[in-house]
Structure formats: structure tokens, C-alpha cells
């Protein structure tokens, strides 16, 4: 599969210490539920992104387990408290173990 580039948006690139930063992220993925059948009546095997994590400057600030009920091209929005500058790394883990990684930067003053 071609490299997937997630779309990540922080509501600010620079923040004061203690400010809340909102993260919006969208990633392209079929999120196949494992419930659907193809034209031959064969069940299409499940293939979803089952795990999402966000680290800021190497420390985890948010994580989520996705179930098949999460829509295709999963969207997630959450907040974190700015405490230190560093990379904001978002990682989605596929059922097959592959990972989709996106990165942004936050500068805390």
C-alpha cells in the first residue's frame, strides 16, 4: 500500500506553558469491519486501525483503542496541556501490525 500521510492539525504551533492545545487528525483507512461480505458471499476479513497513541516530547498524552464501529478514514480530536516543546507524534497501528505515523511540532514558551 502506498504510504499514507495523515492530516494533523494543531490549533496553535506555539503555546504558553499550561495552555490547552487541540489536536485534530484524520487518516485515510478503509476500517474494514469484518462484517461485510463480498459478491461471492465470502466475509471480507477485518482490517482496522485498532490503536492510536499521541506522544508529546516522548511522553504519552493520549491513547485510544478503536473498534470496528469507528468510521472509515478515522477522525480524532482531543486536547493536551502544553508543558514542554517537542515533537507531537501520532501513531496509528493497523491490525496487521503496520503503523502510520504523523508528526507535528509544538513550541512552548
Amino acid at each position: 500500500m502506498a504510504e499514507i500521510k495523515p492530516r494533523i492539525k494543531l490549533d496553535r504551533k506555539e503555546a504558553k506553558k499550561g495552555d490547552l492545545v487541540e489536536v485534530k487528525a484524520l487518516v485515510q483507512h478503509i476500517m474494514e469491519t469484518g462484517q461485510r461480505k463480498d459478491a461471492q458471499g465470502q466475509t471480507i476479513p477485518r482490517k482496522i486501525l485498532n490503536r492510536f497513541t499521541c506522544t508529546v516530547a516522548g511522553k504519552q498524552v493520549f491513547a485510544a483503542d478503536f473498534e470496528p464501529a469507528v468510521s472509515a478514514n478515522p477522525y480524532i480530536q482531543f486536547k493536551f496541556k502544553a508543558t514542554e516543546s517537542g515533537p507531537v507524534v501520532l501513531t496509528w497501528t493497523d491490525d496487521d501490525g503496520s503503523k502510520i505515523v504523523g508528526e507535528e511540532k509544538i513550541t512552548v514558551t
Partner: protein
Amino acid sequence: MLKVTITRREVFKAGGAVACGAVLPLQAHALGQMETAIRRVVGEAEIRKGKVTLDLPPLVENGNTVPLTVSVDSPMTKDNYVKAIHVFNEKNPQANVISAQLSPRAGKAAISTRIRLAGTQKLMAVAEMSDGSYWSDTQEVIVTLAACLEDLI
């Protein structure tokens, strides 16, 4: 020889009994599914109403992408924060929707995502607090075009 006569009325009665018998377990299954999924996560703990706000459109046209926001009223300090937010549904093939793990570093316990819904149903968001208590909110959603159905040919 014993003659067995079956009247039209009896046929209907029997049919009705069969139909009810078929329907009741289904309902019990649907209700039980969400309840079981919730219990699997929270255990025997008491779930209280309040603190959590589950925000969904009351009427959804397309069940394939339903915007959903869960926010929890919490100061998110070191001693008092939301540990996790779980969302459950009543009628999808699987009752779990999403489980998010938070920490005081989240600053505010609010998440949004988009989910699939197979038909009109109830949704429940459960928040797990750092002190071990559970709080919840329930919303009813009407879905006109259900997810999961278009492919069941």
C-alpha cells in the same frame, strides 16, 4: 384413528407464539450485548449518571459517519482526572465503539470522532475517574440510513 383438526385460529396462535419466541431473545440479546460489554470494562462498579456529556446529532442521515463528542466535567489535576472514556452502542454487531485513555496531561477530557451506527439505537459513554468511580451519559440516535446494511446482499 384420531382426527386432528387444526383451525385457522390455532394456526395464527401458533404462529404468534413462534414469532414472539423469535423476537424476544433478539431484544434480550441486543440489550444484553451493551450491558455485557460495559460490565466487561467496568466490572461490578456502580455507574452513576452525570459529569459526562455525550453529544450526538439526534437525527442522523448516514450511519456510516456519525460525529460524536464526549466531554467529562473534571479539573484534570494530578489527584482528580479522567482515566478513560469508553463508548458503547446497543445494536451494532459489536457493542464497543471506542476506548480512550487519558491522563492529567490531557488538560481537558474531551474527545471527538466519527463512528458507524447500524440503525436507530442508544449510545452510552462511560468515564472512569482516577478515584475509581464511573459516570455515564446516554443518548438516543435516530439513523435513517444504517451502516453495515448496504453490503448484506
